[in-house]
């Protein structure tokens, strides 16, 4: 027996598993599996139960994150690294997950309609989150790729699982384009591997540092990596899926995508470009800067002419990706770039989720129609909202102004911090473009308020949205965070500062 153990040991040394490092991920995975079991063997379990379990899982994961808070190391032979980016994104992602869970629990189907998302959406949500935290923590391109696939597949399914036709179309577009772009990403990984002989970020950093060879192969790989990441964070010209998908998918899922995918995507963006490839910044900064300019302007400009709020939010999220790219462009040379981007992600996540929550609330107004191909999110549905649902309108105003970047709301500080980073990195011209873009974007954020506040309601009063306690809770949290971060950003800013040192 003992001998056998010895034999196997020398034949196949047992791997060192650093359980603690991945405790939160494990918790998420476990919760996901448990939920799967519940869904499978207790079909009559209400959404409340599932939501409760999900939240419990998230809470545990959050607790473990806190437990790991000042853990700072590279684990699993460089597969994952625990540093500021990891823990900050974990925190944000778990919070976003909780809000998304609440939204999903409420659902956006009116009384008398079947739920438009199956119960499996809860475990899928957890798995998606798992993929995202992994993505944020991954310090090996292979893990990046796998984590990306985990979250993408979960999201494809969450989108496609709705009975609405638009949702399935969205799922298909998202899937085909996602697979297409991940092939590019993969090719990028291959080229990086070919150029450096490893997929480990530390190794790549080391290899890219030494001047042997002109590194063209590596640069080509970087370019393709950028393509993959830009697609995930929906930067122009890889953005075109975004409006269709956000508009088509059920609002809770869209909100989750808009907030969480960005967090994870930019976390990895920062880790790879600002961290591992920081040495090559002179080569890739022009690319990122150019993409940023396109993203900011195109996103803002196209949002102006939208007539559907979900779609408009999609374009606005594109332009916000542009601002974040400013942070990324700055990050390689200016530490503030990293913390600015992380803080921006935090603020943005809650703003945009809040906005989508209002959308969800409004989409419940009006009579049930089971075979609607998509939800009611046209701007016309918001006419005179202030007269009939003053609270919803008020919250909408808060989120819109925050997205515009009006002080003292969270969005303002985020924007400010990114601008600061940009100027510190000597990218003032880029910041000026950002200013122009945010002026353009003011147009459409205001347009929403114009419709909600300054126009008279059309038709007779719609049916009440029914009781929406859970959604109300979610809205309360989101708005509270948006305002609170705006009034007292200190703690979260200094927390973001700790993310500036990137391990591997």
């Amino acid at each position: 027996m003992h001998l056998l153990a010895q034999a196997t040991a020398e034949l196949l040394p047992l791997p060192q598993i650093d359980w603690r490092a991945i405790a939160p991920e494990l918790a998420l995975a476990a919760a996901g599996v448990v939920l799967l079991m519940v869904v499978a063997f207790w079909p009559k379990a209400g959404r409340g139960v599932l939501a409760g379990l999900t939240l419990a899982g998230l809470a545990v994961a959050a607790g473990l994150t806190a437990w790991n808070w000042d853990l700072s190391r590279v684990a699993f032979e460089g597969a994952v690294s625990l540093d500021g980016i990891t823990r900050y994104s974990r925190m944000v992602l778990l919070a976003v997950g909780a809000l998304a869970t609440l939204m999903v629990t409420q659902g956006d189907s009116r009384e008398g309609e079947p739920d438009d998302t199956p119960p499996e959406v809860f475990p899928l949500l957890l798995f998606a989150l798992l993929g995202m935290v992994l993505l944020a923590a991954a310090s090996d391109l292979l893990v990046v790729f796998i984590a990306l696939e985990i979250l993408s597949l979960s999201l494809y399914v969450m989108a496609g699982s709705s009975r609405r036709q638009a949702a399935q179309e969205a799922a298909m577009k998202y899937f085909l384009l996602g697979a297409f772009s991940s092939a590019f990403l993969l090719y990028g990984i291959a080229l990086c591997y070919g150029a450096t002989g490893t997929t480990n970020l530390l190794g790549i950093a080391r290899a890219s540092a030494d001047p042997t060879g002109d590194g063209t192969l590596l640069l080509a790989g970087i370019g393709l990596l950028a393509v993959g990441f830009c697609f995930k964070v929906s930067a122009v010209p890889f953005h075109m899926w975004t409006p269709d998908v956000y508009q088509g998918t059920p609002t809770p899922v869209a909100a989750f995508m808009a907030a969480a995918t960005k967090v994870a995507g930019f976390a990895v963006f920062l880790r790879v470009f600002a961290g591992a490839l920081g040495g090559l910044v002179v080569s890739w900064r022009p690319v990122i800067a150019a993409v940023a300019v396109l993203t900011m302007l195109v996103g803002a400009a196209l949002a102006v002419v939208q007539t559907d709020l979900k779609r408009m939010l999609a374009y606005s999220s594109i332009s916000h990706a542009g601002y974040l790219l400013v942070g990324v462009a700055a990050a390689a040379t200016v530490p503030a770039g990293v913390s600015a981007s992380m803080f921006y992600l935090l603020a943005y996540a809650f703003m945009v989720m809040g906005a989508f929550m209002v959308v969800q609330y409004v989409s419940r107004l009006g009579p049930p129609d089971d075979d609607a191909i998509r939800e009611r999110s046209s701007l016309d549905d918001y006419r005179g909202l202030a007269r009939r649902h003053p609270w919803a309108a008020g919250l909408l105003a808060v989120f819109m102004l925050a997205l515009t970047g009006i002080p003292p709301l969270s969005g303002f500080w985020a924007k400010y911090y990114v601008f600061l980073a940009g100027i510190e990195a000597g990218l003032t011209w880029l910041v000026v473009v950002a200013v122009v873009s945010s002026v353009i974007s003011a147009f459409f954020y205001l347009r929403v308020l114009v419709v909600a506040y300054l126009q008279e309601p059309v038709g007779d009063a719609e049916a009440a949205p029914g009781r929406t306690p859970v959604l109300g809770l979610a809205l309360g949290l989101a708005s509270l965070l948006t305002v609170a971060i705006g009034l007292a950003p200190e703690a979260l800013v200094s927390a973001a500062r700790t993310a500036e040192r990137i391990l591997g």
Partner: protein
Amino acid sequence: MRVGPGAYLLLSALLFGIGVTGVLIRRNAIVVFMCVELMLNAVNLSFITFAKTNGNLDGQVLAFFVMVVAAAEVVVGLGILVAIFRKRSSASVDDVNLLKG
């Protein structure tokens, strides 16, 4: 005269390009998806080749993982396509454009 890694890499790039073209010009969703698979395999070829030039096995392991991922993708992808096809019996990617603008 012998076959250097360049040949394999060129071949891989060529296959990748063919896959890309396929995605762009085919309308049958399933064929489009097959083209994506072709792209992945082209990349795999690169991985294996690079594994040889680098003299380590990581490339082969990566290729293995890629196959796993591809398998998972196929399952989900085909699921989605089937679901869509159930709603309106066409597999043409051009027919799904409710969402635009």
